[in-house]
């Protein structure tokens, strides 16, 4: 004979569809979180994305968004499961089952479902990472650095999320069991969740809030630093909060009013509008989460074209195939050595030109950190090292004539004068670091030659000044810069050989990155302090790994080699590119699954509406149109808003960098637009699949 346990087992079988949806939601959430955290804690990624760097911060920020999305998603899934379960619970309660009688079975079911789905999700997260990453390696780009290493510390995050999922499921179960109004429990499934109808101003205010939040959030740190001479804490990011409030209001407006005027045709789409409105609360939440995830995904996706297009355009625009520079105390290949090396590859070099430069110290204002996160500015005589050319050498090297007055200097910038913040335009004297003689100077302006634009800047001095200040300067403070072209088609093998030959010719005294400043080090040591570059804070580079992204991006004597830079771009930045592609895929998957699940929920909740419409004689095409309009809001609104908001934000960031958009940025933004179109096509395909599935569920032919 039947027992309570057998009865519950039978009822669970009836709820299979709902349970599968719940399992699926938890499984996907845990899979995504585990995969993301596995990547985030992976030594492969951590090594490539330096601590405190923008890329690492972006990775963490998007993780927080994804985590938020997944938490909302699992909470939603659990709510959905219990809404369907409520009728069963209510009937059993009505027939005299006490809480104590129902609790064991209900908790057993909930714990099994949430626990099993979460554990499966965690377990599947690792193969998912492995497949995706190795898929990237196989089909897109492969490099030594891309060898995937995992740190199982990431399981702490998965475990925390697992606890959230299981605890929330149990709390929801408790909430249902504790309800005293049994009729409410029975009718829970058909309960509408209308939103409070806001005025039509809601959408416009929402857009304004999004814009205001983006501007406030972006400018708040610099305003704070100017006002308080202190570094802001992470809480400063709360200035972005209006963006989320604005997004919520836009979603609310979309669900309640829509964006078309209904004054002319008040009855047009009245059914779909009212259906949407009466499921409003959950729909608005879902739309918001999907929007945030799509925005996060677009942000991660933009990283790739923005980095590659600018780089590709810069490489293409170089006037020479090769450029290298070295200190005079180093024995590096000269013109004849390079010619001989090229001959081994049946190549000849042409247009070889070189000139010497001086490495002088510049004075300026520096930011001094105080205790308690504040700072102040101080003038210092020895601020930074810089490379100085004479005006005639600049002409010999570039063919550009520039007249520099005595006692002045020019800073060499790229043609568009972007990134000039690396250049010191406020120096009042230069110091010869060997003799400590000084030369009073003032800034005269920018000279343009993109090929000489460097993080450790190049400057131009008057020939007489150049001669005067160079007196007594030892070879370790002098250098040579050389350019040359390859006659005919260049060879990658030669370029690689040249690069490795060059690197191996440098001594260990040159084994440091471009942010290691010898002048700053001397100044710090003379003040009795340890230079920060000599501590563990600084990322070190090594001649043993000249092909790593760190070495190629930061070595202070890194040559510019067109064929190498072009061919190795994806390899050099492989981990960066793949990590951001990975993040983008994770966020996009989460957003699409949330939207798909919402569509299925709309189908389940509104089945009776569609049945009634059928009885009232609605044609299949009419019903299909109604289904489509429901799914359209779920897919279209987050896509349009998420993508356009992120595109706007990215453009704003690009513009705010230096007050203009340069050709590389415009090219990058154009490529981003193309990628968004592709992304939209993928979302459209998922939308079509969802509509087909909804029609199947509602038996609409």
């Amino acid at each position, binding site marked *: *004979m039947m027992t*309570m346990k057998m*009865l519950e087992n*039978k009822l669970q079988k009836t709820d299979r569809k709902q349970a599968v949806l719940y399992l699926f939601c938890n499984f996907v959430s845990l899979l995504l979180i585990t995969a993301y955290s596995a990547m985030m804690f992976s030594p492969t990624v951590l090594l490539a994305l330096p601590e405190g760097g923008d890329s690492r911060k972006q990775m963490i920020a998007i993780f927080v968004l994804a985590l938020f999305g997944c938490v909302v998603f699992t909470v939603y899934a659990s709510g959905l499961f219990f809404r369907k379960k409520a009728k069963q619970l209510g009937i059993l309660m009505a*027939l*005299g089952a006490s809480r104590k009688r129902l609790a064991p079975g209900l908790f057993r079911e909930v714990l099994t479902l949430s626990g099993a789905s979460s554990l499966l999700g965690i377990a599947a997260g690792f193969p998912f990472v492995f497949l995706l990453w190795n898929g990237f390696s196989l089909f897109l780009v492969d490099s030594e650095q891309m060898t995937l290493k995992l740190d199982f510390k990431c399981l702490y995050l998965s475990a925390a999320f697992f606890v959230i999922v299981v605890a929330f499921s149990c709390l929801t179960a408790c909430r249902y069991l504790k309800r005293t109004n049994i*009729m409410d429990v029975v009718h829970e499934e058909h309960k509408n969740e209308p939103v409070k109808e806001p005025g039509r101003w809601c959408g416009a205010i929402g857009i304004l809030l999004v814009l205001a939040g983006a501007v406030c959030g972006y400018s708040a740190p610099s305003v704070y630093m100017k006002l308080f001479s202190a570094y802001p804490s992470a809480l400063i990011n709360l200035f972005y909060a209006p963006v989320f409030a604005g997004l919520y209001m836009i979603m609310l407006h979309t669900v309640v009013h829509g964006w078309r005027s209904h004054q002319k045709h008040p009855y047009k789409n009245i059914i779909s509008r009212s259906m949407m409105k009466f499921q409003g609360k959950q729909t608005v939440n879902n739309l918001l989460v999907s929007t945030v995830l799509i925005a996060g995904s677009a942000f991660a996706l933009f990283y790739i074209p923005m980095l590659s297009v600018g780089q590709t355009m810069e490489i293409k625009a170089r006037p020479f195939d090769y450029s290298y520079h070295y200190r005079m105390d180093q024995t590096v290949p000269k013109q004849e050595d390079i010619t001989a090396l090229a001959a081994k590859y049946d190549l000849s070099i042409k247009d070889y030109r070189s000139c010497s430069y001086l490495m002088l110290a510049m004075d300026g204002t520096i930011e001094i950190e105080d205790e308690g996160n504040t700072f102040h500015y101080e003038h210092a005589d020895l601020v930074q090292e810089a490379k100085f050319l004479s005006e005639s050498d600049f002409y010999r090297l570039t063919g550009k004539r520039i007249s520099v007055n005595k006692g002045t200097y020019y800073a060499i910038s790229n043609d568009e004068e972007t990134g000039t913040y690396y250049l010191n335009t406020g120096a009042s004297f230069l110091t010869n670091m060997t003799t400590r003689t000084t030369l009073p100077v003032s800034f005269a302006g920018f000279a343009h030659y993109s090929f000489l634009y460097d993080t450790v800047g190049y400057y131009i001095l008057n020939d007489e000044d150049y001669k005067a200040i160079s007196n007594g300067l030892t070879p370790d403070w002098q250098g040579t810069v050389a350019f040359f072209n390859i006659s005919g088609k260049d060879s990658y093998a030669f370029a690689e050989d040249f690069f490795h030959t060059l690197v191996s010719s440098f001594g260990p005294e040159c084994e440091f990155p471009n942010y290691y400043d010898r002048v700053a080090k001397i100044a710090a040591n003379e003040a009795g302090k340890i230079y920060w570059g000599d501590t563990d804070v600084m990322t070190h580079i090594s001649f043993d790994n000249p092909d790593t992204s760190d070495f190629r991006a930061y070595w202070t004597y890194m040559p510019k080699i067109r064929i190498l830079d072009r061919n190795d771009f994806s390899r050099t930045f492989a981990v960066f590119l793949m990590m951001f592609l990975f993040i983008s895929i994770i966020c996009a998957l989460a957003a699409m699954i949330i939207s798909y699940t919402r569509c299925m929920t709309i189908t389940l909740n509104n089945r009776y509406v569609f049945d009634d419409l059928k009885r009232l004689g609605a044609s299949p095409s009419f019903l299909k149109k109604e289904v489509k309009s429901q799914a359209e809001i779920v897919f279209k609104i987050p896509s349009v808003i998420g993508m356009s908001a992120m595109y706007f934000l990215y453009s704003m960031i690009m513009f705010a960098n230096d007050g203009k958009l340069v050709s590389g940025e415009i090219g990058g933004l154009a490529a981003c637009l193309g990628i968004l179109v592709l992304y939209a096509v993928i979302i459209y395909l998922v939308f079509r699949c969802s509509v087909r599935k909804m029609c199947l569920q509602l038996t609409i032919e």
Partner: protein
Amino acid sequence: MLYVKNLHKSYQSGGKSCPVLKGIDLTVANQEFVAVMGPSGSGKSTLLNCISCYIPFEEGCITLGGQELKNLNEDALAKIRNEKLGFVFQDFMLLDGLNVRENILVPRIIQGEVSEEAGKLADSLLSLFGIEHIKDKYPADISGGERQRTAVARSLINKPLLILADEPTGNLDSKSSRAVIESFENAREQLGAAIFMVTHDSFAASFCDRVILLKDGCVYNTLKKEEKQSAFQDRLLTAIKEMSSADARTGR
């Protein structure tokens, strides 16, 4: 057997309190078949839900079989719902995953393991209500009338003192309605149950011993059946008409 005294219940809507039951007094005797009628919004279903302890009420008292219900804890209330009350709902409230026989046995399963005696009782209820042939079928595979008769059989499996029925014929055609009413009569005669039924259907109500007319949360009138069923139905209709005319006179 059932005593309801000065029962008050109100709902909260938009921060306002809307009284639905305004001091109801009524009784139901053993084996009595009582109907409650009234216009929509008069509080019929709310009254039934309060008696069932499905929804909490603010004031008044309900006594069933000598036991005051208001101060009982959840477990005791559940026991009463399971053992002393039987329920029949307008939309049947059968469990989709169980077949007809299993649905009938649900209140027994809730009590504990189902004994052989309970199985025999379920079989006899199946035959009493003429649904033996569909005992292995699932709710989705049977007609509305058959579902409701299954629900009536389920309400009787624990031999309750009182069956509470909320619009049991509301979703049924006349033939099925008749079958359900006959089920109630059978239950009363053969199993000794009292029945308290909320209905809009004057035909169904005309089979009852007594009909309570409810209006705006108060008992408007009580009619006792002293004539034949069809004549009683006529009297009921007249009383309902009178109640509506009173509304018209007061301009409501």
